[in-house]
């Protein structure tokens, strides 16, 4: 069932505790900006949006600049490579929330050409060697679904150590 509410009752010292589950289907319009961002990913292109007043490129893009309140319309393509600004390695599992099994890493990546960071997963990485400032590259999902995990994760860029 899409919308089920399970009721169970526990009793302790003559006090009852009711247990239930709330599962409510919902739809969210992505809006024109996020829609265009996801459609861009189909061609493996990452688009940001630039505020001409503040000279800030927002990635992921958004409709209104929070700094000057202007309506943003200037689309710019940014690189699929960037620099890690901060990260964490998660050691607990939340199977219904986490796309990866612990231990795994989240990071904030500033893509080349962007002025804001993208919060994302870090994959294909030796967790002990993740460092602020390291270079990362987007890995795209094979079959795109139009959501944030169309970029599966960012992986470390291996520096060539031969030839």
């Amino acid at each position, binding site marked *: 069932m899409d919308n089920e509410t399970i009721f169970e009752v526990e009793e302790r010292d003559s006090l009852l505790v009711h247990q239930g589950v709330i599962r409510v289907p919902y739809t969210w319009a992505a809006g024109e900006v*996020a829609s265009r961002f996801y459609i861009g990913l189909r061609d493996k292109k990452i688009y940001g949006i630039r505020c001409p007043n503040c000279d800030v490129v927002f990635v992921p893009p958004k409709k209104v600049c929070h700094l000057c309140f202007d309506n943003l319309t200037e689309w710019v393509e940014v690189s699929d490579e960037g620099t890690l600004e901060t990260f964490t390695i*998660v*050691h*607990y599992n939340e199977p219904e929330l986490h796309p990866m099994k612990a231990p795994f890493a989240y990071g*904030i990546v500033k893509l080349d050409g962007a002025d804001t960071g993208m*919060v994302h997963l870090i994959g294909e990485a030796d967790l002990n060697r993740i460092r602020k400032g390291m270079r990362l590259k987007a890995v795209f999902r094979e079959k795109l679904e139009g959501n*944030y995990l169309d970029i599966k994760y960012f992986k470390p860029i291996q520096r060539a150590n031969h030839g």
Partner: protein
Amino acid sequence: MDRAAIIGVGQTKYERGKTKNFAELVYEVVRKALDDAGMELDDIDNVVTTTNDFWDGRTIACMAIAEAAGSYGRDATNVEGDGTLSSFYGLMRTLSGVYNSTIVTTHCKVSEGSPRKLFNQAFDPVYERILGLDAISSSALQARAYMNRFGITEEQCAMVSVKNHRNAKNNPYAHMPLDITVEDVMKSPLLAEPIKRLDTSPISDGACALIIATEEEARKRAKRPVWVKGVAHCTDAYRLGERDLTYSNALEMAARKAYQMAGITGPFRQIDVAEVYDAFSYMELMWYEGLGFCGRGEGGKLIESGKTEMDGELPVNPSGGVLSAHSVQVAGMVRIAEAVLQLRGEAGERQVPGAKDALAHGINGICGQTHCIWILSNEES
């Protein structure tokens, strides 16, 4: 700003798995606040509650507890967010000239929901929500950014946890009074690096209420009114990637505005006691900096100096802070209630002797997106 005062406070003990329901918790603190103020419900002319439908597991959750807050036949309204924000709204209603005395309530039973799943719902459903971030993992990103930038150590963060859990031993309302060492914190299980179990706040249930009155009403009723000298609230960008995670500009702006209203030019020197929203140990150090208690990047040095300990120049979180009791949207109002008790000289074992001016701080949103500052005093001017 016209004068207003806090003339009554009520709190529950904070603990996990409280058996009272939401309305029972709200009634407990409203009754306590009225008794504290020497008032009856007839003396209250408006009610502000604080609810979050996700935490309460029902929609229009405010209506379900409104009666317990004294809403019947009165103007009752609600704020979704931290208790410092509903208190701010209660203050504004008090100052509107329409009402004399406002009761503000907040409650939360964190243990009854699914905290990580509920916090995840704070993220944008069309962007990052699907990553599965929650309060711990998102705060870990902030903690690392802050610590990396200024060379703050995990041990310095741990010292906050040691101090606040020790302070909690003097607070009968606290959930987690603990005798722990820096080593205990360092050895506690890693949750999301650099955050470890003992760097986090507990899952606590509880409620809190305040009575805010006009100057005239406060003079008529209160033996020891606590005057609101300054209050301000400021908001940062929504997305973590668009903020300076190493320093809270929103906190600095809120603090500056509240200090200006209160005539405070040297906060560390002029404030006698501070209660801040330390949901994680590193936050207290970051908030020291945003509040101007020390320079940027000097939070680690300040905790090491001992100046924010109970016997220091500016004791921070004598109650044990949020690290020792975290009923989410209750926690900010508790900071105000604790400041009021300090300024009335009624804080028992956790009393800071002779406190005259106090600061209370609340946060709302992911990693402290917004900050609310209250400057309170037991002196009229």
